[in-house]
């Protein structure tokens, strides 16, 4: 069966420090991968999605970037965190064809101080 792993679960980082959140999927190949930020009252904001290795689509301009170095690995990064980057980040995957449902990771609560 397929599983999605996302870590760390919580992270406290100072302003200006770098960020790396990792997400891996097991049990499937060539998944579509997603990074969302969930904020109260704003729902789920799509940040990045990827349909293949090295292919990244950005939905909103921001201080963050994403990379997909391997088929089932999706990384969310920042060179210098801002206070406004605080939030709950969710990784998700879907099958490569047919736009089937999303499967979500457990999320990372990021606090930038």
């Amino acid at each position: 069966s397929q599983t999605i792993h996302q870590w760390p679960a919580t992270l406290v980082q100072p302003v200006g420090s770098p960020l790396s959140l990792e997400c891996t999927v097991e049990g499937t190949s060539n998944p579509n991968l997603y990074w969302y930020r969930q904020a109260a009252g704003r729902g789920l904001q799509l940040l990045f999605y990827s349909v293949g290795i090295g292919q990244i689509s950005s939905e909103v301009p921001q201080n963050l970037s994403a990379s997909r170095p391997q088929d089932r690995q999706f990384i969310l990064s920042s060179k210098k965190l801002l206070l406004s980057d605080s939030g709950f980040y969710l990784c998700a995957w879907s099958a490569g064809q047919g736009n089937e449902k999303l499967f979500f990771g457990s999320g990372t609560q990021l606090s930038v101080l």
Partner: protein
Amino acid sequence: AQSVSQHNHHVILSEAASLELGCNYSYGGTVNLFWYVQYPGQHLQLLLKYFSGDPLVKGIKGFEAEFIKSKFSFNLRKPSVQWSDTAEYFCAVTPLYGQNFVFGPGTRLSVLP
């Protein structure tokens, strides 16, 4: 790009009351539509989805949704809510041949016992 709006930020109902949560999307082409639910302390999970065919879609736990193409709407309904339906509900849309799932801001449902 597509966008999704949800009519209500917070809905409060008594048990056995009927529920209707509004969802409208904007996109010029054919879409796939979803409702996701997030129970307190749990991951997001799929409630129901519409790809094609009968515009009235039945999901889990007695929920249903109706796709009205002329109104760009996909409202969620349940005839009689239970306390256990207390959760946050998200409408989502993706283009027929696209991979970017876009979510609405969410509606928080509180069901009073």
